[in-house]
């Protein structure tokens, strides 16, 4: 069966240098993929969609995204008509997993319904056709200026502070193995990164930091700023090559997606780095006995499957194995398939454009955790931890949100340090 839903070079589904209308190119690129959904019409994806669960607006459903492309082809809508609809997505990937086409016949026909890529491509089309969203525009202008994500709002994220989190840890620059530190984890939840780095040090893993680390570019790509994302990727890869890096450790699931999905698209075969997912590495180190979890953690916890681990990459076992390896800790687990419909709302720029939806998604996730009568919600993604922490603090009975690496470090007897929230502006200055 012909599948003309292949991605273009930049993953945006069209080539701005080609003749012809950009929207037409977009439709041509994605119509077969869209029709796979449109003709099925089951809508099984809908109740697992975290945004739809909150807004209950049919425009915000994965099926509507695909139907919009068919409607574009028929001349019923154009990109301006649907631009706001396509903001309503965290790119969590639940819809793709729940699609009957993917589930039952996808392997045989080599057809997987692609919705995350469609949303990214439509957002790129929005940027290319002057249908930008104001919040994302400003955010990406700042990214272009500072090269790190403006995670702190008005507080500048300057290069001179990108390694502040590592103070006192004596981590070298460069080397064969590079630890890539996500902006959220470098400037905001630094305890996450300090815990991870110290776990590696405890296990004797040698690693260094980049000479000049820019944002991975993933969020910009998610918001449709394809060229900007690519510029950041090119910088980072050049920095890795300059120090002779062969292996990149990505503790943050969002970076891992960028390095394993976006970067190979940008650089093709020349991209030959080994990308290591943080939680899988720590799991190996614990299982090999190189990290000893000896200090009991007397908490009753449940685990939040971060979307980009569980739904996008199928990684759900290592975090659970690690939690079960911590002495004293009681895990009240919700299986990873049930968690297809869970999310923090923190992904794909949603909190920038629609903070109220992100907040409500997180409120609901925290409420689900509280119904299990736990004292802690453990996550494994700093992007989820900010909205979840805020929701936990807002709740009538506050719930603490802790990162998995932070708990592991504590159990390994490490004094983590760092902070779990933004520093006060004067402290940064």
């Amino acid at each position: 069966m012909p599948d003309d839903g292949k991605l273009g070079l930049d993953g945006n589904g069209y080539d701005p240098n080609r003749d012809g209308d950009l929207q037409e190119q977009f439709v041509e690129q994605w119509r077969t993929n869209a029709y796979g959904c449109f003709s099925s019409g089951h809508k099984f994806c809908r109740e697992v969609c975290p945004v739809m669960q909150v807004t209950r607006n049919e425009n915000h459903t994965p099926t509507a995204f695909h139907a919009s492309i068919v409607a574009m082809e028929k001349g019923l809508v154009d990109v301006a008509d649907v631009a706001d609809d396509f903001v309503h997505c965290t790119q969590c990937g639940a819809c793709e997993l729940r699609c009957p086409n993917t589930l039952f016949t996808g392997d045989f026909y080599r057809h997987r319904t692609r919705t995350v890529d469609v949303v990214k491509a439509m957002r790129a089309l929005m940027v290319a056709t002057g249908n930008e969203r104001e919040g994302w525009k400003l955010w990406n202008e700042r990214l272009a200026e500072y090269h790190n994500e403006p995670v702190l709002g008005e507080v500048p994220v300057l290069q001179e502070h990108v390694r502040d989190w590592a103070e006192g840890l004596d981590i070298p620059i460069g080397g064969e193995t590079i630890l890539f530190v996500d902006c959220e984890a470098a400037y905001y939840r630094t305890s996450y990164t300090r815990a991870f780095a110290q776990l590696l040090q405890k296990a004797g893993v040698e690693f260094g930091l980049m000479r000049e680390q820019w944002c991975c570019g993933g969020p910009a790509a998610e918001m449709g700023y394809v060229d900007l994302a690519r510029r950041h990727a090119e910088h980072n890869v050049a920095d890795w090559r300059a120090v002779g890096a062969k292996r990149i450790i990505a503790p943050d699931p969002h970076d891992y997606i960028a390095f394993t999905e976006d970067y190979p698209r940008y650089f093709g075969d020349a991209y030959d780095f080994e990308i290591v997912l943080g939680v899988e590495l720590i799991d190996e180190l614990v299982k090999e006995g190189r990290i000893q979890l000896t200090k009991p953690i007397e908490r009753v916890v449940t685990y939040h499957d971060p979307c980009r681990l569980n739904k996008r990459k199928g990684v759900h076992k290592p975090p659970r194995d690690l939690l079960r390896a911590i002495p004293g800790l009681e895990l009240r687990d919700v299986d990873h398939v049930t968690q297809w419909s869970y999310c923090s709302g923190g992904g794909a720029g949603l909190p920038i454009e629609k903070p109220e939806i992100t907040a409500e998604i997180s409120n609901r996730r925290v409420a689900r955790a509280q119904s299990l009568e736990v004292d802690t919600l453990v996550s494994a993604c700093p992007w989820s931890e900010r909205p979840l922490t805020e929701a936990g603090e807002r709740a009538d009975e506050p719930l603490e949100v802790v990162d998995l690496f932070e708990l592991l470090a504590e159990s390994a007897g490490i004094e983590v340090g760092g902070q779990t929230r933004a520093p006060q502006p004067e402290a940064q200055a």
Partner: protein
Amino acid sequence: MTTIAFKSGVDDAVIDELRAIIGDDDRVLPNTSSRVNRTRVPAPFPVHRWADYMPDVAILPKTAEEVSEVVKLANRLRIPVVPRAGGTGLSDGAVARRGGIQIDCKLMNQIHEIDLVDRTVTVGPGINMLKLNEELRKHGVFYPDDPASYPCSLVGGRIGTGGWSLLGARFGHTRDLVVSMQVVLPTGEIVEIGEGGGRKLRKSSTALNLKQLFTGHQGTLGITTEATLELVPRPEVEFAAFFAYEDYMSAYRTLGDLTKSGLATLAGVVLFDEWKIAYLRRDDEAYIPQPDNVRAVIAVAMYGTRAEVEPASKIVMKLGRHNGGRYLGDEISAGDWASRHDRYATPLHGRDKNGQAVMMSWHCEDAALNYSVLPKVREEWHAIVERYREQYGIFDDWGMFAYTSGPHKPWADYLVEIDIGIWESRLNEENWQGWVNCKREIAEVSLKYGGSITACHGATREGDAHLVPQEMGSAWEVVRRIKTALDPNNIMNPGQQSFDEFYEEGA
């Protein structure tokens, strides 16, 4: 003296009034994408005439009072009102046929009360059954309305269409599971509809039994704004068994044996014919990696306590193997029963006349038929589809099944479906009319054999709708009196089920 609601009634002044009623502009949606995205249900659709199906505005109410005020406005100005819940029906009940105001109830998805003493749960019409059951699970109860669209359809749509459940033989269908409801009438009044007495009574003999009237009307008599539903103890045991047969008639006899067995825990017995088996063989992942001599399959499911189901399962195994049946094993039985919502229609299995794979939309034509006529109807339906397939080259026969349909009485009534793939992107007006004619011929066969056009999807599609008066026969005049009395201006989902003729005739 037509009083049919007209399409051009929604102007800026109406939008302003709607905004004043709703008080939240995010819930009043006259923009193009909101209208485009509320035109379609999962059934073939004349894509070339998409705009004909667009409402003029969609609203997302949160309360019965908001619904009531909007309906009063529509009634005053003679503007069509189209209720929409999940929009997952297999007919066009939730689709605007004359524009107007679409009342989309998805935000009314609250659980208002769980009563574990009198065993009811009261919900808004926008809640999904799977989501409801996630909440009910911790109380040891469940709401057993289980359509193929279980993961996505909503309670309000189930009530509006008179939905049918895969577990209906054991637990009843939607109409048997709704204890009472709150309804906004076409004139805007909010009324309580039940058996009589309070909201939680299952049986009364007072006055008239109105509840069934408001179940399965396809959105033409009112809008359910709250429903009190049955709570059933969670079954201790689920049992499923699939059996293969070398010919249809052996399976057909077994179907009769099983459904007349008197086993009260039978939740469903379904017979798949050879066309359906062939369809499922189109890829190597399907549930039937079975040899060519398998020409029919029977699936049986039972639910209940262990004390009931375990001994009953031995009887099922014996009956299923009778008439040459071969048990397909625990893995296929349990696995395919578990995937019953997702498995049986996928666009990727479409084939053109030359056997080339093309993505097709799925239409399932559903009839209500008695056991005695199943073999004859099967032959005639397949012959009709084959004729249209040859003539137009955009249709594909995806096979048939017959499924127990009598609530708590599985022995004589069947939901019978023929699934037809349609190469929707090839539709033009000529092909579409061919399709409408095909549907009409299929429905006419059902009527000829004493059946009904539809067991659950609703007779709201072109090809079916104009046969409704014929099917209703002498009762059609009763339908006219009821519809015109409750909806004097034909504002409630006009264009459906031939009801317009009541008004065109000057009622």
